[in-house]
């Protein structure tokens, strides 16, 4: 019985799309555990690390830090706002994309597949520049757009950044949601139908919650990946934390110090994100296997 179960699990592992198996390889999803952390060799390693940090503080220049602390905090806020808004919007698009690929009619299915293939097959930086420079140069040619109430926003950079990041998240997460929707046991859906639930109610009460639950570990990784993608918007003049650091580097002629600080900031943000997801995952009651 157990061997059979394990074989089934192994088959399931192999059947998963590569994204789900690699998302943990490309995004940090688990923090090192504190239990059994203090071993003799680790104390030595930490002493070495402490020495390195001390050297970094002592020998590198950090006198610019107080002057730019406000700008950096603002930049972190912009990055987090971008992350939250594009993840939520992207997820809202990913759910229908995943769903139509499982049960939709073929034109919608083909459309969703085409969207996923195109977005996942090209670099995000290129998509960003296509939207910002391409659409941005196309829009002013249409008087209707220039006179619409959207124009003041379309002249700025951030709507293009939000759009590109949202589409990217939707495409990657849509593929994950497709697997999650398909993976909900048929019996549960049949039971819901036997209870006389309408299709709408079945979707909201059974199918979506179960799929989200299945997708949660991957969602964690995808969100970390999204955080790692946000600095790209600095290339289209959105002032996030990466852009602030680039500015500091230009003004102070320092190569390493601002970049090291930036890496530290992203490290902390990732850790916070992982902790937040762990909190939500623990909130969901599961039967321990």
């Amino acid at each position, binding site marked *: 019985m157990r061997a059979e179960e394990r074989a089934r699990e*192994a*088959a399931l*592992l*192999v*059947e*998963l*799309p*590569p*994204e789900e*198996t*690699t998302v*943990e*390889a*490309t*995004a*940090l999803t688990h923090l*090192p555990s504190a239990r059994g952390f203090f*071993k003799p*060799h*680790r104390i030595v*390693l930490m002493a070495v690390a402490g020495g390195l940090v001390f050297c970094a503080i002592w020998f590198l220049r950090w006198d610019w830090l107080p002057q730019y602390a406000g700008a950096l905090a603002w930049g972190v806020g912009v990055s987090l706002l971008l992350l939250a808004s594009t993840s939520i919007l992207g997820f809202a698009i990913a759910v229908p994309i995943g769903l139509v690929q499982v049960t939709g009619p073929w034109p919608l299915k083909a459309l969703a597949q085409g969207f996923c*293939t*195109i977005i*996942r*097959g*090209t*670099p*995000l*930086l*290129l*998509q960003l*520049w*296509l939207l910002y*420079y*391409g*659409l*941005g*140069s*196309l829009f002013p040619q249409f008087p209707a757009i220039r006179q619409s109430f959207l124009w003041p926003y379309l002249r700025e950079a951030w709507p293009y950044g939000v759009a590109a990041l949202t589409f990217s998240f939707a495409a990657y997460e849509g593929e994950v949601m497709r697997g999650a929707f398909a993976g909900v046991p048929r019996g549960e859906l049949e039971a819901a139908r036997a209870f006389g639930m309408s299709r709408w109610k079945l979707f909201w009460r059974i199918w979506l919650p179960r799929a989200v639950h299945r997708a949660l570990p991957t969602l964690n990784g995808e969100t*970390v990946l999204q*955080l*790692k*993608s*946000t*600095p*790209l918007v600095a*290339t289209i003049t959105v002032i996030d934390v*990466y852009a602030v650091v680039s500015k500091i580097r230009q003004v102070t002629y320092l*190569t*390493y110090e601002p*970049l*090291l600080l*930036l*890496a530290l900031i*992203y*490290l902390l943000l*990732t*850790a916070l994100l992982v902790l937040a997801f762990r909190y939500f995952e623990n909130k969901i009651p599961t039967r321990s296997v």
Partner: protein
Amino acid sequence: MTADVINWGLLALEPPGWGGVLLAGLFNSIKIALGGYSLGLVLGTGGACGKLYGGPVVKDLMEIYTTLVRAVPELVLILLLYYAGTDLLNRAAAALGYGTVNISGLAAGIFVIGVVQGAYATEVLRGAILAVPAGQIEAARAYGMSPLLTLRRVTLPAMLPHAIPGLSNLWLISTKDTALLAVVGFSELTLVTRQAAGATKAYMLFFCAAGALYLILTLVSNLIIRFIEARARRGWAAPS
């Protein structure tokens, strides 16, 4: 009318058109992706073995490496490694009395992508090696094979089918990560596209053309991956 809107002549291969420049950029991207991916595989194999079989210090150092790379954006890593790598090499050369060395953008790009890919590959390969039944590795050890021989004859071939989905995804990631080198000024496909678009003001045309090139690269890669996957699994039972 549409002939005025879209000037296809801009994509011509000869100098008045920019097609040749784009293709050269694509070629550069593929070179970096291939080089970085290969370097990443080497680093990843070492990293996975270090994580699984190394001593406590090696294990911790590998953990730090993969944690850092997986938590910090590629763009930041690329900048850090690019400046730090070239700077350190220059200082080392100066200290040894060679004066400044000129590091080609290609070598720097391969190094940067390779270090990032190495951390990803470490995780993928570690998972794949763990999927190999322990008995097979124990049997190899019982036959008196040295650790390296075990790795070459048993562990690597047996884990490869498990690693292929992850590794193929890493290849796609590495082709897309080359676009980030545009930020440090290496003339790969994305940067030359931007230059061409800026020079001709035909932004839409060039970015769509570059997108099509990337997409073709991905789709061709997918075909080859499917072929390799089918070959690697030819001894496996069909999934029920």
